C-alpha cells in the first residue's frame, strides 16, 4: 500500500442549502504511508473539517476520500465504522476518553468494540510512560497523562493512520513535547502515518510535511521547515488579503 490517504477535490459546506458556508473548497492531497503531516491555518480555515472528512468522521459535500485504498465517501455507515475501528486511531484536543472508566478500559475500547487484537497492554503503557497506571480511572489523571492514554489507545491496535486534532492544544510546552515525541516515534518505529492539525508552529515542526490552509483551500504544501519559518509563513497566510470571489 503506497498512499494511506487520498483526498480528491473535496468540498464541504455547512448551513442551509440556500446559503451554504464553505469550509473546504476543493482540497486534493495524497499522504504516503509512514509520513507525519501537519495541517496548519488560521481559525476557520477548514483544518478540523479536513481532518474529519479525511478520517471518515464526516462526509464531504463533493469529492472523494480514499482511506487505506477504500473509498469512504460511498461506504455505508457500518462498514465505515469498522474501517475506522480497525485501521484508524484518534487523538483529539479534549473529550478524548471516557472519564469514568480506567486507563485499561479506555485503551482497550476499540478491542471491546470488536477491533483488532491490540499489542500487549503493559508494553503499550510502558511506551507512553504510564506503566502501572492501568487500573486508574482517567478522571483522576493530569491533562498530559490523559493525552498519553489517548495516544496509547490510538497506537495499541497497530493502525495505518492516526489523526490528531490539536493534540497539544490544552497542554504546556514541556508536556506537549512528550506527546509529540510519542507521535513521532510511532511514525519512525511503527511506520504509522500521522495527520495532525495544529496552530502551534513548535508542534508542527515535529512533522515531515507541512500543509497550509486558507479559507478552505491548500495554499502551501511541502517539507516542514524550522519553527521560525513556519510561524512566518503562517502569519503571511493569515494577513494576506482574501482572494476576491
Amino acid at each position, binding site marked *: 500500500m503506497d498512499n494511506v490517504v487520498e483526498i480528491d477535490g473535496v468540498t464541504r459546506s455547512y448551513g442551509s442549502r440556500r446559503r451554504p458556508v464553505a469550509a473546504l473548497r476543493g482540497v486534493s492531497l495524497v499522504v504516503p504511508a509512514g509520513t507525519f503531516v501537519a495541517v496548519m491555518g488560521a481559525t476557520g480555515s477548514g483544518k*478540523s*473539517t479536513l481532518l*474529519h*472528512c479525511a*478520517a471518515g*468522521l*464526516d*462526509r464531504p459535500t463533493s469529492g472523494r476520500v480514499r482511506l487505506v485504498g477504500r473509498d469512504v465517501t460511498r461506504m455505508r*455507515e*457500518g462498514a465505515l*465504522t*469498522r474501517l*475506522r*475501528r*480497525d485501521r484508524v486511531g*484518534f487523538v*483529539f484536543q*479534549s*473529550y*478524548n*476518553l*471516557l*472519564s*469514568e*472508566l480506567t486507563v485499561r*478500559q479506555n485503551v482497550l*475500547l*476499540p478491542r*471491546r*468494540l*470488536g*477491533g483488532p487484537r491490540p499489542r500487549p497492554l503493559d508494553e503499550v503503557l510502558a511506551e507512553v510512560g504510564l506503566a502501572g497506571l492501568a487500573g486508574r480511572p482517567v478522571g483522576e489523571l493530569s491533562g498530559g497523562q490523559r493525552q498519553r492514554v489517548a495516544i496509547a*489507545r490510538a497506537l495499541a491496535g497497530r493502525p495505518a493512520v492516526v489523526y490528531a486534532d490539536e493534540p497539544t492544544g490544552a497542554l504546556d510546552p514541556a508536556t506537549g513535547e512528550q506527546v509529540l515525541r510519542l507521535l513521532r516515534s510511532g511514525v519512525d518505529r511503527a511506520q504509522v502515518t500521522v495527520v495532525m492539525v495544529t496552530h502551534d508552529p513548535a508542534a508542527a515542526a515535529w512533522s515531515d510535511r507541512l500543509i497550509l490552509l486558507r479559507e478552505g483551500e491548500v495554499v502551501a504544501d511541502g517539507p516542514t521547515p524550522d519553527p521560525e519559518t513556519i510561524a512566518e509563513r503562517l502569519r503571511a497566510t493569515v494577513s494576506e488579503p482574501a482572494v476576491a470571489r
Partner: protein
Amino acid sequence: MNAGLVRQALRKQPWAFAGPFVTQCLAAALVSGALGASSSLSRARLDPAARRALTESLIPEMAVLFVVVSVYLTALIVGLTMTSSIARQGRDIALVRAVGATPGRVRRAVAAQAAVVAVPATVLGVPLGALFAHAWLAGLTGHGVIPPGVTFHPSAAALPAALGITVGASLVGALVAAVRPARVRPATALTETAVPPRRVSVVRTAIGVVLVAGGVVLSILMANGDPAKADGSSFFTMLAMCVGAGFLGPVLLRLTAPLARLFGGTGTMAADNLAVRAKALSGALVPLVLAIAFAMVKVVAHTTSVHVHGAPEPAAQVWTEYSGTAVYVAFAAVAAVNTLVTVLLARRRELAVTRLVGASRARALAVVVCEALTVTITALVVGTVVAMVTMVPMLHGMLGTWTPYLPSGQLAGGLAAVIGLVLLGTVVPALVAMRRPPVESLAVDP
C-alpha cells in the same frame, strides 16, 4: 458488550436518569397497585348480590386499563426523558462512534442504560403501588363504590409483572429515542460550535396551526352534533390541540417571552434566555399543557355539573374519574419536570459564567425564577384555552350551559400545583448547580 458506554453514562451523569427512573417507578407502582387491587377484589368473600354490584361498578376493568396505560405511557415517557439524557452524552457517543462503535451498538447501549435504571425503580415502585392501592380500595369502600369487606392483599405477581413491563417498555422507548442520535456523524458531535438552530421551521409551525385549527373545528362540529358522541371525540379534540400546541411551542414561548421584560434587568435577561431556549423549553410546555388541560376538563366538568344541578354527582363516579385522571396527570408532570431539570442542568456552565461576570447567586436565581414563571404562565394560558375549546361544547351538549364553573379554592389549588411543579423543576436544580463556586463548575463541566 457496550464498550463501557453504560457505565460511563450512569456514573458521570446519574441525575440525567432521574426522568426515566421516576417514570419507571410510577409505572411499577401503577402495575403493582392495579394487580393488587384486582386480586383483592376477586379474592374478597362477597355474597352474590355484592359480587354483581362489584362487577357492574367497572372497577375490575379499570385495573386492567391502568396496566395497559402504564405500558404505553412508560414506553412514551421513558423515550422522551431518555432523549435528554442521550443529548447530554453527545460527546461520549461521538467518541465511541469515532473509535469504532456502530450506530446499532450505540442504540443498544442507550437501551441498556434505560433497562438498568428500570430495576431499582421497579423495586421501589412496587411497594409504593401496594400502599396506593391500599388507600384507593379504602377510599372506594368508604364512598360505597365497592362493597365493604374487600380488603387489600398485595399480589405476588406484581414484582415480576412490573419488572417485565418497565424493562420491556423502557427498552422499546429508549431504542426508538436513540435512532437519530446514534446516526449523527461523529464529526458533528465533536465540533465545538454545536449550537442548536434558533430558527423555527415553517413546516413545524404549519403543522401546529393545522392541528389546533382541526381541534377547534372538531369542537365546533361537536357543539352542534349529538351530545352522546361528544364525550368520546372530545378526547381527540384535546389531544390534537395539545400536540398542535407542542409544535407551536417555540413560537408561543417567543410571544410570551417579552412579558418578562416588564420585570427590569432580571426580566430582560430572562426574556433573552427564553428566546434562545424556546425550542428546548417547549419540550416541557407540551406535557404541562397536557396535564393542565386534562385535569381542568375533568374537574371543571364535574364542578359545573354540581353547580348546574345543585346536587353532588355520585361519589363513585367522581372517585373513578379522578383517580384515572390523576394517573395521566402524574405521568405528564414527570415528563414536564424532567425536561425543565434537563434544560437547567445543561445551563450549569452558563450560570457559572453569569456569576463570574458579576451576578450574585440571588440574581442568577431570580433570572431562573422569572423564566420559570413565564413558562408557567404560557402553559396555563395555552392549557386553559385548550381545555375551554374542548369543554364548552361538551358542557353545552350535556348540561345546556355555556359557562364553565370552577370554585375559587380549586382554581387556586390548581395554580399553586402548576407553579410549584415548574419551580421544582427549575429552582431546585439551579440551587444544586450553584452550590459550588462558579470557577469550580467551569472546571468540572467543560
